[in-house]
């Protein structure tokens, strides 16, 4: 990844992070869109696995700073998702929307799973409902939103040659 594409990727990730803190509170859905995860997967698939792991760790830690009860849980989940996305992208290289949507869906679900288990706040039926019902719903919504975001932001990422 050269400097130009790195800056473009950074801009797109920044837009997605800003959307996470502006559009998400406005919508306030029960199964909400996780723009941070879209930004994580979007950046991770364009990095080496080590960079993706660090990127995920920092992003997760930043979000954890706002929820003291689960400090470290988001960092762990985001590290796993970032590293896995980058590694899987290297193994199964493809740049189509369906694969991106699949990565987003799985990524969000795994993120929630790790987060819920690490957080240790929910137990029993509540945790089961979160993992089986709400997390897949949020993952599906995130996947759809991610595909739309990638389609809309694709012009920023395309390198024009004269």
């Amino acid at each position, binding site marked *: 990844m050269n400097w130009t594409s790195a800056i473009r990727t950074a801009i797109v990730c920044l837009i997605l*992070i*800003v959307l*996470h*803190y*502006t*559009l*998400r*509170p*406005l919508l*306030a859905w029960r199964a909400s869109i996780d723009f941070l995860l879209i930004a994580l997967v979007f950046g991770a698939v364009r990095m*080496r*696995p*080590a960079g993706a*792991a*660090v990127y*995920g*760790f920092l992003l*997760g*830690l*930043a*979000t*954890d*700073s*706002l929820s*003291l009860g*689960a*400090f*470290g*849980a988001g*960092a*762990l989940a985001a*590290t*796993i998702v970032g*590293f896995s996305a980058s*590694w899987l992208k290297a193994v199964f290289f493809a740049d189509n929307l369906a694969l991106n949507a699949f990565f987003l869906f799985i990524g969000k679900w795994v993120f929630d799973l790790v987060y819920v288990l*690490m957080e240790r706040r929910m137990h029993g039926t509540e945790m089961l409902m979160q993992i089986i019902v709400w997390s897949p719903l949020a993952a599906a919504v995130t996947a759809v939103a991610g595909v739309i975001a990638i389609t809309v932001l694709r012009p920023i990422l395309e390198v024009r040659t004269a």
Partner: protein
Amino acid sequence: MARAARFSGRLDTVVFAGCIVLALAASALPTQMREPVAASLRRSLVAPLVGLQQSAEGWRAAWLESERKTLERDTIALELAQKQSLQLENDRLRKLLGLGSRLAWGFIPAEALHTSGRAEDVITSLTLTAGSKSGVTPYSPVLAPEGIVGLVQTVDPTMSIAILYSHPDFRVSAMSADGKAFGIVYPHLDVRPGRLAERYLLELRNVPYRDTLKAGTAIFSSGLGGTWPRGVLVGTIVDEVKEPESWARTYLLRPAVNPAHVTSVMILTPKRGSQGVGNIWASATQVDAALKSIVTAGDSLGRQAAIAEAAARRAVLDSVRRAGIGDSLRRDSTAFDSLGRPRAGVARPRPRRDTSGRDTSRPDSVRRDTTARRDTLRPGTP
């Protein structure tokens, strides 16, 4: 090359493992050690994002508040509209109860359902929620507390259809209250386009030339013809219709009942129709007229008392002025004209702190004219 790739893969794994260890360590940190790290992140990297989130939540709160206020406003408007319609309905039902108690027997109460589709259509028929099971028969008179509504045309077991006085087939033999002038009431069909309100007027035809009726004269059913009992209010005279070369007079009538406001009616049974309804509508009209005359008389008495009081006050002032006691009073007298009003160009004297003076100069001692207010409160006003 292969060595570099192997090294790179190993580096990735090491960095990943390091991040995992750090994350686990962060989650395992005690609160007093975890808080400084989180606080430094909140104050630096996350602060602008939290600001953005705060703004977004502010917008959402404002939007929800706006929605709530709109909902509240709509609810209040709806409740107000319902209250007005309920008040109207309550008034109508009270009148109907009054009519029921005056009729005492021989009537069937029913709800009137409007079946007209478009707003510009003239209402000529009503569906009534009482049928043959309740004792309704064809050609039974349909009444409202104000007067004639129409006539039952078709009867089913549980419902019936009545034609209104606006229907082209409607006729009723009518007379003036004193029983001197007779005629036949028809619907007023000859209406110019765009003047729908006139379509609900009636015509009193075939009134002999020798009988003239003034505007405002109440017209009642005469009882001739056998369908309508004598004495049901039809309407009041509006004006005479001038027709060249005719042998009888025709008058325009304003009906006592507005079809748009008819929601509950009474259907007279044939037995009651043949025995008559007595003097119910005429007495109600007389009570209205009596109330009106009492109120008017009371007002005129009040006015006369106020005039007399003002005249007495003027007379007292004049007598004091004529006595000419002291310079101050003389100076005062130059400031007023013969009617006790202050003259133009003369400085108005300061009012004295005299209780008798204050009493006589109080403007509210003159009674106000209460005619308009009493009229609006008069019971039985249509």
